[in-house]
């Protein structure tokens, strides 16, 4: 699946403006908003070949290809989406949407609150996975897509795909959920809260109104990202990549960077704090924490999925301890209880949670096989 497949090439994002207020799960509402969108491939005549790709924590609408003025800014799932790739843009019309509250152009906490004229900051309403899905459904309306061939996502994106199957059972034929979970564990929430505390206690955070102070809570963002990165990698992967390698060959007997793993995490943290918004980090981790579709059914996921109509593909990775295979199996079990069509692969990959973004042929070939079947249904 390598060299022979080319990228979709130069892509251009588009802004879609929505003027009707969106009522959120919390009861709050957003008066009007913009969603940043990218599309790849072309919509067929009966509008049956659209696939929505939902993004995870720090990603965006930029799923595939690159920008004319930023050739190194390659979409986050470019190995999955493109001509001849598993989700083949020669056959499917693929849509990437930046979610509300994110920081890549869609309306978020850094944008002016129409009520005050100042940036929303901490006043940006808390959004949930279901809120995002409702906003995505409005986009589908505007694009004239009544039913998606598939809705797909990994991790938090997988939660959105799952939510689609429950909220709009008639609007998708297939649901592809990779390395995801029906709800976070206490351990997942704990990691998220440590990350949030790092941001909230950074003196530069200013209660979320750091824009007015022209500062960025960099230290908090950096620590948040470092914690995140630890949970994305497996112990084995970290041992293999970094082990106890020393940056300068010997102990420095200080608190600077001794080990390569420290250097790596600090680099990732620095890079992240350059582009990511602190309020967005808080919002998105809350959306993760709150997702629990079974909650309304007394914790019974089988009942929560009873009204779904889609066919499902799930995949998990054996060394993913953030959203482990057990979590995917809970979803599979609930779907099997409901006699839904479902296939599930447990990929024995060493890369932890990050594996869903990487090039494992077993994983990519499986997704390709699944989309080939969907393409055959179109013909």
């Amino acid at each position, binding site marked *: 699946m390598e060299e022979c497949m080319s990228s979709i090439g130069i892509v251009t994002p588009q802004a879609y403006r929505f003027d009707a207020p969106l009522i959120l799960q919390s009861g709050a509402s957003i008066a009007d908003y913009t969603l940043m969108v990218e599309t790849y491939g072309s919509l067929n005549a009966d509008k049956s070949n659209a696939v929505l790709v939902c993004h995870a924590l720090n990603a965006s609408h930029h799923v595939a290809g690159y920008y004319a003025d930023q050739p190194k800014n390659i979409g986050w799932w470019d190995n999955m989406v493109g001509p001849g790739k598993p989700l083949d843009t020669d056959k499917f019309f693929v849509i990437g949407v930046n979610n509300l509250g994110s920081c890549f152009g869609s309306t978020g906490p850094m944008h002016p609150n129409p009520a005050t004229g100042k940036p929303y900051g901490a006043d940006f309403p808390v959004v949930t996975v279901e809120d995002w899905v409702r906003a995505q459904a409005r986009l589908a309306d505007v694009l004239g897509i009544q039913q998606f061939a598939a809705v797909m996502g990994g991790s938090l994106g997988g939660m959105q795909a799952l939510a689609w199957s429950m909220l709009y059972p008639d609007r998708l034929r297939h649901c592809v959920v990779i390395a995801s979970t029906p709800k976070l564990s206490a351990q997942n929430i704990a990691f998220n809260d440590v990350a949030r505390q790092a941001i909230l206690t950074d003196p530069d955070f200013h209660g979320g109104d750091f824009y007015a102070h022209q500062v960025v809570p960099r230290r908090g963002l950096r620590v948040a990202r470092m914690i995140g990165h630890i949970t994305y990698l497996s112990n084995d992967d970290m041992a293999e990549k970094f082990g106890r390698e020393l940056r300068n060959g010997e102990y420095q007997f200080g608190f600077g960077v001794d080990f390569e793993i420290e250097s790596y995490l600090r680099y990732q943290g620095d890079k992240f704090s350059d582009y990511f918004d602190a309020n967005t980090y808080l919002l998105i981790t809350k959306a993760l924490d709150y997702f629990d579709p079974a909650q309304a059914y007394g914790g019974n996921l089988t009942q929560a999925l009873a009204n779904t109509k889609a066919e499902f593909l799930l995949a998990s990775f054996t060394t993913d301890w953030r959203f482990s295979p057990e979590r995917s199996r809970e979803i599979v079990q609930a779907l099997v209880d409901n*006699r839904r069509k479902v296939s599930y*692969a447990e990929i024995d990959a060493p890369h932890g949670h990050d594996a869903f973004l990487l090039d494992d042929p077993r994983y990519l070939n499986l997704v390709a096989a699944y989309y080939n079947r969907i393409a055959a249904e179109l013909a």
Partner: protein
Amino acid sequence: MNFSELKVLRPDLAFIAHWIKQGAHVLDVGCGDGVMLDYLQTDKQCSGYGTEIADEQVLVCAQRGINVIQQDMENGLGIFADNAFDTVLCLSSLQMMKHVEGLLRDIARVGNEAIVSFPNFGYWPHRTALLRGKMPVSKALPYEWYDTPNVRCATIYDFADLADDVGLDVLECVALHEGKPITFLPNLRGSLAVFRLKKK
């Protein structure tokens, strides 16, 4: 996949297929390349799932468009509810299991009927091999003792006892050779044992 295609590919499966009712909800434990479910789905309008551990087989199943769930049978059938299936198939894979009894109990738990097949170690060439003092190597058992995946060796009579123990009644027991039923001296002349079982 129609019946004649199945008969060419897998005569043993073609023989077994007539025991499965039209529209049945089926679990195929250790479904391999998914050919049986493919046939049952297209020709008999059956629904259901296959379970399979091998990556390459899971991919073939996905290409065929059958529902495949990747899991190790040794871990049981925990994700399936009691009485979830009309028929549970476990075809030519039981002999590879460490936990045969546990899996059979689980098959009895999730299914109403079960169809189980395995190589019959009572097949006469296997007996003559042992008489000559060597472990049997044949078309049905094409492995040396040190590299065989078949860790459980049973004859037709052996299996009937275990089926009774785990709560399964034997409805039919057939010995096949090259896909054809053997009626005269089946435990001697049949290389593949096939049991049709029902929960007691």
